[in-house]
Each structure stands twice: as C-alpha cells, then as structure tokens.
C-alpha cells in the first residue's frame, strides 16, 4: 500500500513536467506558427476564426475562461486585435497581461508600413495609428513572428523544453526561407503587376513580391465603397491597365464584380489569413493558395 502511495506522489510530482504550455492566439495565422514552434509541447487555442474580419471580433465571455488558464497570449498587436484587451482584464491572469512574460505582441520588430504621421482622425477612416497591421502576409515577417513567439515560449517554458522550441523554430524558419524563394520565383514573371483589393490587406505581400498596389475599393480603411470613388477607380484602372482585383474572403463581391465588369479585370478571391479558406489551413498553404490563385488569374 505504501508503495502505491509513493508511486502516486512520484507521478504527481512529475505531472507539471509533462504539462503542456497553454497558448492562446487571437488569430489562426498566429496559431499556425505557434504550432510549428511548440509542437506537441504546447496546447494552442485560437480565439477568432480565420474567416472573419480580424478588426471586428466580438469578445465572448467563454473566451475569458481560455485566457484565465493561458500561460502565453500571442496577438497581432498594432491595434488590430485590441478586442482581446477587455478579455485579458476579465481573465484576472497577470501572466499574460501587457509587460508580463506571457504577453507576446508579434508586431515587435516588424518594419511597419503606412504608419500615419502627425495628427490622425477618422477623416482618414478607421486608420491604425501604428501602421498597417496585416504584416503576416510577408514571409520575412513570418520569420519575425516566429522569433517573437519563440521568445515568449522561452520565457515561460521549463528549461528542459527550451532546446526543443529553438530547434523547431530554426526548422520552421529555414523551411519558410526555402518556400519564400520558391514563391518569389513563381511570382517573378508578374513583377510590377498592378492590382487593387477591397481593404488594404496586401501591402506587405505586395512589397515582398514586388507587385504594384494600385488602390482599394474602400475609399478609406473601414469606409464602404462610394459611387464616386468606384467611378474614379474604374477610370484610373482603365487608364493604367489594371487587370487584377484581389478580394478578401469576407468582403462583399458586388463592388469587385462591378469594377471588373467595367475594366475587364479579374476578381480573385484570396485568403488574407490562415483559416479564411479551407485550403489555407496553415501558414505555408496560405501563401500557396494566394500565389496559385494570382498565377491562375494572370496566366489565363
């Protein structure tokens, strides 16, 4: 009987060593990269599905329970997923509050684009004061996100797991670099291609793959397309020969179709994040799907 107790106490003492690190990610893109680094030593929970506009996620009380038990919070930052802040406050979990070891803002170290200068207001639409937050759509930035997540995991992980995370992060980064070369090669023939999208979701993508971001169907971020703006955009697209419209999965198609009809451009529905389409179920397939769809449209 005494031996059984000894075994029981031994197992009890060992259990924390086998406990997985609980990571809560605001969006599936971050979850995908976290799983690449964390492997089977992390349990990843995603708060918002990938087929939603990440700007507009309604916080739910049930999300508080996930955050209460989390060791690490991984967020996009730059005010994109600020809906998580009220949930973190409600969770009472100081481990994941801003400035704590379990708080990971993946935008740290990103070379930010479209950072507004001077005084900003809603006159510019729903502008992000820290710049365009859709930075994960550049493989370069995927590497920075991975490094930020790794740094977070190293802060909270037991010392025995640290080498495991470092190795997996190295492996992810080297695979990403290889794939990025392939993706770049695939889009090289289309270098300088002008395109428009609904929202300005593809700035980092365009910069990395050397495409020319011509404009957006929204006149300003978050502001619905107006007749005057669409008319101007059609004229400009005709004049400049813009033949590609990238449409994020969650925006209405009618404005894109209207512009396509007038300009002869092709509308290509693309995922702007992991989970936005079934095929784009991880960080690698996200780029595969976008690039294949762009190539398909421009070839034909």
């Amino acid at each position, binding site marked *: 009987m005494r031996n059984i107790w000894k075994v029981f106490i031994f197992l009890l003492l060992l259990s924390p060593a086998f406990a997985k690190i609980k990571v809560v990610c605001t969006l599936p893109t971050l979850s995908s990269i976290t799983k690449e680094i964390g492997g089977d030593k992390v349990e990843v929970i995603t708060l918002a599905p990938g*087929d*939603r*506009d990440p*700007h*507009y996620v*309604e*916080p*739910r*009380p*049930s999300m*508080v*329970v996930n955050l*209460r038990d989390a060791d690490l919070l991984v967020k996009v*930052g*730059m*005010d994109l997923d*600020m809906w998580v*802040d*009220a*949930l*973190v*406050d*409600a*969770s*009472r*979990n*100081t481990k994941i*509050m*801003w*400035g704590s070891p379990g*708080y990971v*803002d993946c*935008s*740290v*170290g990103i070379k930010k684009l479209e950072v507004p200068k001077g005084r900003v*207001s*809603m006159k510019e*639409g*729903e502008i992000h*004061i*820290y710049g365009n937050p859709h930075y994960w759509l550049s493989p370069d930035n995927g590497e920075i996100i991975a490094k930020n997540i790794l740094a977070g995991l190293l802060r909270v992980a037991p010392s025995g797991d640290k080498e495991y995370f470092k190795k997996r992060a190295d492996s992810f980064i080297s695979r990403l670099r290889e794939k990025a070369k392939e993706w770049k090669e695939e889009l090289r023939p289309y270098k300088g291609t002008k395109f428009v999208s609904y929202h300005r979701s593809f700035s980092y993508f365009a910069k990395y793959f050397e495409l020319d971001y011509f404009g957006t169907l929204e006149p300003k971020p*978050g*502001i*619905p397309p107006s007749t005057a703006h669409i008319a101007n955009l059609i004229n400009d697209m005709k004049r400049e020969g813009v033949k590609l419209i990238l449409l994020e*999965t*969650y*925006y*209405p198609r009618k404005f894109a179709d209207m512009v396509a009809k007038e300009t002869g451009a092709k509308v290509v529905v693309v995922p702007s994040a992991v989970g936005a389409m079934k095929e784009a179920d991880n960080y690698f397939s996200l780029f595969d799907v976008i690039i294949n769809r762009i190539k398909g449209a421009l070839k034909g």
Partner: protein
Amino acid sequence: MRHIVLLSLLVLALLPLTFAQNENTTSEEETPPPPRGSIMKALQLPEISIVGNIYSLFSSNKEDEDRNKVKLEEVELALQSWIYPTIRGDVIMSIHEHINPATGERESHAHIEEGYVSFLNLGKGFTLKAGRMRVGLGKENPIHPHHRLYVDNPSILTTLFSEHGLISDGATLSYLFPTKTFTQLDLSTWQVVFPEAGEGMPGLEKTLHTARLWISTPYKDGELESGISGARGAGDEPVKIYGFDMTFKRWPSAFGRDLLRTEFFKAKHSTDKVSGWYLLGAHKFTKYWEGALRLDNSELVGGGREKALSLIASNYMTETSILRFEYQYADNPSGADNRFWVQVIFGMGPHAHPLE
C-alpha cells in the same frame, strides 16, 4: 567644499534627465505598443475619448416636450489608463439634460457617470472595483447607452431605474469560478446616486446591496449567456428587486450576427410593486447594417402598464459612429403613441468598456 556641494546638486538635478533620455532611446522594436494603443510616444497621458449622442424625436403625443426637436442627449468624456501594473482607472463624465424632480424642469447636468478603479488581480479569481459605476443589476443597466442597440431604454428599465439608469457609489467584489464554463459572481454594496429621489422605483435612494451570477457557454456556433440578479435596499422599507436575463448570440457569417435577448425584473416596495420584461431580437445583415425588434411589457410605478413594439435600423458608419432609426408604437395609461427617432452617435478617440 561649496563646489563639491554645487557639483553634487548639479549631478542630482541631471539624474532624472539622464534616465529620461535613456527611456526615450528605447526603440519601438524592443517594447511592444501598449494595449488599446493610443499612446504613440512616451507620454504619461490617459486615453481620452468623447462619445456624443444626438437624436430627434417625432411623436404623435403633443404633450411630449422633446417632440420635433433635435436634442443633444448626452456627451460622454472618458479618461482611462493603467495606474499600476494590474490596476486600471476609468473616469467617465456625462453631460446631459435631466428633469429636476423637485421642479419638473429640464436642466443641463455635468456629472461623473462613472469613476472607479479596478483591481484586476487580487488572486484566486477575485477582482475588486470601487468608485462610482453603472450598477451591475441585469444585463443592460451596466451597458452605456451608446453601446445599446436602440435609442430609448426598455420600459421596465426606465420604470425601475429612470431614464439614465441605476448609477451608484460603491464597490463590487467579483469572483471568476475555476470552472470550464464562464461563471462569475458579483457582490456589491452601493449608495445610490441615480435615480434621484422621486424618480424610478421607491426605496432606491438609499443603501443598496446587489448580487449577480453570470454564466456563459459556447452553444453550437454561438454563445448562450444567462444571469440572475438580486438587489435589496437598506432601511425600514427596503426595496427588493429580482432579475433574470438571457442572451443568445451567433455569428453566421464574417460580419453577420444574430442576437436574442430577454430580461425580466420584479421589484417590491411597501408602496409599489412592479414587474416587467422586454424581448430584443437583432440581425446584422452586413458589416454596416443591423435590424432589430423589441417588445416591451412593463407595469409602471404608480399604476398602469406600458406595452410597446419597436423596430430599429442601425447603420454602423465606423466602429464608434452610428446612425440609427427607431419606430415605436407604445400603449400606456396616457394613451397610444407613435414615436420615431433618428439618432447619431459619434465617437472620437480610443474608447473602451469592460467586457459586457
């Protein structure tokens, strides 16, 4: 010796400057931006925001003083910041018109609607809020008017808590149960500030103790929330209020949302007994448009009953600016009334409220 003293004083005077310079050279790359980002540079300023609420009421009731006028209903000025790593401070000032119960005249009031500190981690799942707050009795009362899906309040809330809701000075101890289902218990003690004497339910003008149990769980592709609330006044003739609320929300598409909410209240005082409910259904068609329907059925303080049907359409221009239309048919002891509101809510600056 005097030089040494002068040199020491100079060094001491320069020390804060040295530290300040060190702080300024901390690059953005090393420090993540603060949550609810509004502070671009290292300024020790709170987040400042303003929310305005303007409406125009057209009513068949010729005795309604607000009829056929454009009215600034309220301006909310919010100052919000962290005051310690786990403590937040929130001050929300409200400027609005208010009927003076003594004279019956409309007067402009500027008052602190809320001003409280939130101790967000007392350990073991507890938090504490102290100061002036919208009382957490039921689902809608704690929600600020500009966050609601309609222009006017449901009859039962106006009957019990007056036009501007139940606002009190006090403290709330909140406990998040360590369960897989979100379960939170709030226990509070208050000195009622609003409604003022003569408004709302009799007996509310004194000390009040409230409790609310809030449970929420994912259900299918949505979330099912329910709450039970209770309040008991102090004094010789205490008021007792019981409430039940239930909300179901689902998000069938990227911007779509369906909401079904009901609240029931029963209040008892030696001079009055009031009960009532409302049922609210809303459907968000697109990113920009939402339609809603509300049914009200409430006894009134002093006798009688109001029944109302409201149809509401909201256009979300941005996250903080809304254009809203509401038609209401109401039947109460003074007769039947057709009302139509046009409302504009406008927001400036970063504005946040706790989880609602």
